[in-house]
Every structure is written in C-alpha cells, then in structure tokens.
C-alpha cells in the first residue's frame, strides 16, 4: 500500500489527503452526533417514561386507596395508546403486585417493585415510581417500554449521518479535485519543464509562475538556475566557437607557412641543382684547361708554377666533388622515392660487398646479430643510408680491433628502430647536432680519410624523405651509434 501510494501522482496524493481528512472529520463528527443523540434519546425516553409513570401513579391513587383493581386496570390499559409500552403494573404499599396490564399475553412482571427510577434492562426500559397520596406513599407503579423508538431514531440518525457523509464526500471530492490544482499544477508544470530541459537541453525554456507562495519561489529559483545554466552554456559555446575558429585560423596559417616552406625548399633545391649543374660546366672547363696547360706548357713552367697549377687542378677536382655532393643532395629533394618491398638483409650485404676491400684493409669486424626485416622503402636510397653509415663507422675509428654492429629492435610505439654502432672515436656532445650539417667536418680535411662532409646530411635527408627520424648516441672515445626509423617501414619478420 505505501510504495504504491508513493508512486501515485501528486494530484492523487493531494486529493487523497483532502478526502481522508474530510472523511475522518466527518466520520468522527458523525459518530459523536450519533453517540450524543443516542444518549439524549435515552435520557428523553427515561424522562418520558418517568412522566408517564407519574401520571399513571397520579391516576391510580384512588384505585389503590380503595382497592379497586378494575379501576386500576382501566387506568393501566389506557396505556395501549402508547405502542412502546409493553407492560405496566401497580404494587400496593405492602409491595405486593396489585394490578398488571400488558398489550401482549404472557408478560412477566417483577414480583416486587425494585428501586425507584428508570433503567435499561433486558433490551427494554423499565421504571418504578412511587404512588403518593397526600404526602404518603401508598404504592409503586411499574412501566416497561421497548426500545423500538430509540432504535428507530438511532437508525434514522445513522442514515442521515451516512447521507451527509456521502454528500460531503462527493462535494469534497469535487472541491478537492479542483483545489488540488492550486498545488499540483505548478509542480506538474515545473516537472514538465525540468523534463523538457533535460531531454532537449534547451536551457531557454522557463517554467510558468502561477502562484505567489513557496511553489512560486521554487519556480523562480528553478528559472534562476536555468538562467545561470543558459548563460554558462552560451559562454561555453562562445568560448568553444572562438577556440575552434582560432584553431582553424592557426591551422590555415600553419598550412600556408608549410606550403611556403615547401615552396621555398623546392625553390632552394631547384636553385642548388641548377646552380651546381651550371657551375660544373665552367669548372670542368677550368679543370680541362688547367690540364691542357700542364700538358702543353708544363715544360715552360718552373717547379713552383707546376706545383700551383697542380694545386689549382686539385682544388677544381675537390670543388667538383662538392658540387656532385650538392647535386646529389638537391636531387634527393626533387625526385620521387620508388617505394617497394625491400629486404634489408640484401641491402646490407650489397653495401658490405662494395666496401669489402676497405673493410679488409681496415680490419673491421662487421656484426649483424640477427636478420633484418623487410620494409617498404626506396631500395637505392636505403642502400645509400647503410653505405654512408658503414663508411662513417669505418672511417672514424682509431682502435686496434674495430667492429661495426648493424641491427634493429622492435618499437611498440612506432616503426622499428635500426642502428649502426661502432667502437670508434665517438662524437663529443657539443657536436652532435653539427654532424648532420652539410659540408660540416669535425676534423681536418685530410684526417680520417677526408670526404666532403655531405654523407650524414644526405642520410638525414633520405630518412626524412621516408618520414623517419635519425639521431645519434655517442660517448667520446668509446663509440657511436646512429639510430634511424623508416616510417614507411613494413616489418615482415
């Protein structure tokens, strides 16, 4: 019953309260009315019967005095006009039954009069009253009345109360069904608005205020909260919009800048290629003419002149190498990669083959601890990476027992990491960024086998063209390790 009542809508609860209150009050009032009227009826009945008994007593004085039972019976039988009287008797002053009368046959009368006064007894009202003549008690009158009238009156009363109860119940139902709206309507409105807000997330909705009571305040408070939410919501939305706009703006800027950078990179590459390509032509001329000069007029020059001419030729050769490196480098930025499946074991083997003589001369031990994977990359360029790194490792080593280790490891967060490690001279920390700069050599031109200083720069470029990353770990005097990744890498173990 209670959980069901709790689930009932507030409208029903309010009506229930009204009905229960009204019903309870009416029921109590009805019971009180019936009870008090019952008591009043009883008292009235007793009073009436006492009066009647006194009248009978008055009218029986002579009959009692003169022992006239006929007259006494006449007096008593006059009571037949009172249908409620079911027995009447007279007792003499000696308390013996003098005369009795009853509308029904077989009535039983008390053998002797009892205490004076009325009393309810055996479902009827009986009364004993004295018969007094000239201040002297000469006998007793006895009357017995049924309770039919009392019962009838109580019933009539009960039916009236019941009718009032029902009528009042109906009126209360009608009134309460109207009046409950005073409370339930604002609450239902509020509930509806709250539901609509939470479903549609439309914070511009408002509950209608209908009353000036606490419910009205509740509605105001609710609307106030909605105001705040709406304000914050719109602020949030605005902030989000601004942020998005700014992000888009920045993205656009970045894209533009990137585009510009790419453009300028391309232009730079183009420039470098064109410049170096065009530079080679006159350089070759200078070299050729120097060569002709030395051949044709070598005999006419003294030793110093020949030496300077030879230096000129060496320089032009060197410049040609530099320009070739520059051309190679700039070509890397211009041509497309030929991405294919590449077995790195083959690549490394080819590089080692081409370097076999040097390696043997330098007595370098090459270790490949485990087979390398198959990746997606430009076969030729990846070959250049290993070639360059192996050459590097071989060149910068002053140890008696030199070794180079070529390996790789899986990387759970990205592409596999390849490395080429040596036990060479190492790179001091302050130079670690500089090693990748073009034509940057850390040592004298002819030390460690010379070179243009473009090798690592080209390696870096190739790695970057593969969307990879290259970095170096080294401790001076102990060795160097170059690590790189190939984003296109597609490991087939």
């Amino acid at each position, binding site marked *: 019953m209670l959980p069901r009542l709790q689930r009932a809508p507030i409208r029903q609860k309010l009506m229930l309260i009204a009905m229960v209150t009204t019903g309870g009050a009416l029921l109590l009032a009805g019971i009180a009315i019936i009870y008090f009227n019952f008591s009043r009826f009883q008292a009235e009945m007793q009073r009436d019967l006492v009066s009647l008994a006194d009248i009978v007593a008055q009218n029986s004085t*002579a009959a009692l005095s003169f*022992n006239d039972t006929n007259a006494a019976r006449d007096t008593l039988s006059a009571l037949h006009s009172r249908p409620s009287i079911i027995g009447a008797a007279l007792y003499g002053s*000696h308390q013996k039954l003098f005369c009795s009368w009853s509308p029904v046959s077989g009535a039983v009368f008390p053998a002797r009069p009892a205490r004076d006064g009325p009393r309810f007894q055996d479902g009827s009202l009986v009364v004993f009253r004295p018969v007094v003549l000239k201040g002297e008690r000469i006998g007793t009158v006895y009357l017995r009345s049924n309770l039919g009238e009392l019962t009838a009156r109580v019933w009539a009363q009960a039916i009236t109360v019941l009718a009032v109860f029902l009528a009042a119940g109906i009126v209360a139902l009608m009134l309460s069904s109207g009046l409950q709206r005073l409370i339930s309507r604002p609450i239902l409105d509020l509930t509806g608005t709250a539901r609509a807000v939470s479903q549609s997330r439309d914070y511009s909705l408002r509950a209608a205020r209908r009353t000036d009571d606490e419910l009205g305040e509740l509605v105001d408070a609710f609307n106030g909260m909605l105001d705040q939410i709406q304000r914050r919501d719109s602020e949030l939305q605005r902030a989000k919009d601004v942020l998005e706009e700014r992000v888009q703006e920045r993205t656009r800027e970045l894209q533009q800048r990137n585009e510009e950078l790419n453009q300028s990179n391309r232009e730079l590459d183009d420039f470098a290629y064109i410049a170096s390509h065009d530079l080679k032509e006159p350089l070759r001329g200078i070299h050729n003419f120097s060569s002709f000069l030395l051949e044709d007029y070598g005999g006419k020059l003294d030793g110093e002149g020949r030496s300077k001419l030879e230096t000129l030729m060496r320089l032009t050769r060197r410049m040609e190498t530099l320009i070739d490196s520059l051309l190679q480098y700039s070509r890397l930025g211009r041509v497309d990669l030929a991405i294919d499946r590449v077995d790195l074991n083959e690549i490394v083997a080819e590089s080692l083959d081409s370097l076999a003589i040097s390696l043997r001369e330098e007595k370098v031990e090459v270790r490949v601890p485990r087979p390398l994977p198959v990746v997606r990359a430009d076969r030729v360029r990846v070959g250049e990476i290993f070639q360059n790194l192996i050459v590097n490792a071989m060149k910068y080593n002053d140890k008696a027992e030199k070794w180079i280790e070529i390996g790789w490891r899986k990387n759970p967060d990205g592409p596999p990491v390849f490395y080429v490690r040596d036990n060479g001279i190492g790179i001091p920390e302050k130079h670690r960024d500089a090693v990748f700069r073009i034509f940057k050599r850390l040592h004298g031109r002819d030390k460690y086998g010379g070179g243009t200083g473009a090798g690592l720069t080209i390696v870096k470029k190739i790695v970057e063209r593969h969307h990879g990353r290259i970095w170096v770990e080294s401790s001076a005097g102990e060795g160097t390790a170059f690590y790189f990744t190939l984003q296109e890498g597609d490991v087939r173990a």
Partner: protein
Amino acid sequence: MAVLRKPPLILLLVALPALLGAQTASEYDVKAAFLYNFTKFVDWPSDAFPDPGSLKVCVLGDNPFGASLQTLAGELVGNRKLTVMRTGSLAKPAGCQVLFISRSEREHVSQILAAVKDSPVLTVGDTKGFADEGVIINFVLEGSKVRFEVNTDSAERAGLKISSKLLQLAKRIVANPGARPGP
C-alpha cells in the same frame, strides 16, 4: 413516630388489599380504612377547620367499626391530624368535618342532614338509600366487596370538592333527586 405508635391501623392499611383478596378482613375494618381514605380525596373549604391542625371524624349513633375506629385517631391527612369522636345526638355535631351516620340513625337522617345542611361536613352513610336521601357518600356492598355511592349535589351544597378520582370509583353517582346510575 406515628407509625410506631399506631401499628394496628398501619397493619390494617398495609394488609388491606391482601386481606380483602383473601376475604378475611371484616367488612367494617375495610369501611374504617375507606373512611380514612375518603378524607384524602375530599377538599374542604379553608374555613371548615376551627382548628387547622386537626380533622375531626364524628360517628353518630352506634359504632359499627368496633376497635378499628380508634386506630384511625392520630393518623395524618396532609398536615392535619385525625381525631375520632362518637356522638349520640346532633347536639354537638359542629366542629366535625366527617360525620358518619350510623345505621341506627336511619330514622333521623333527614333531620341530621338538615342540621348539617350548607355546612362543610362530609356525611358518610352506611345504609341503602342514604345517598338518595342526601348523604354525600354512602357505603354499599357488591357481593362481599365494599363500594360506595356519591351524591355530588349534596357535596356541592356542602361546599366540598370531591376528587374526580374518587368519583370514578363510585358505584353510583347521585347528581339530583332523580338518581342516575354510577359507572
């Protein structure tokens, strides 16, 4: 106190219906009790009492009641004390409120009535025909049962008011010389 001092009458009165019912009470015991009860149903004018504290019952002629007459003496009727007096003649009927005319005075009844005429005296007879003669209340026997007749004209003339209750019990009411039957 009176009750204690006068047990015989009380006993008689108390026992009367039973005695009557058993038919063992003597006729004059009953009549004595009736005589006493009559006084309760009759109103005398206030000037009828020279001594307001007493009500005098006089018996004219022979006393048929015997000892029961004396038992009435001293009883209270309202606030008056009953006294009983026998008188042989009409010489001094004055001062009597009740005058019982014995059967022995049947020859003189008209004289007696003439003597008390217009006086507030309740005359009680015990002889057939006395009511018609003008005696106010007259005992009659109905079988063995004591009853009485009332002459209302005489009562009216005497200035007495007889209770209707008493009249209801009368065997016969004489309203004028032309007698009419009682209820």
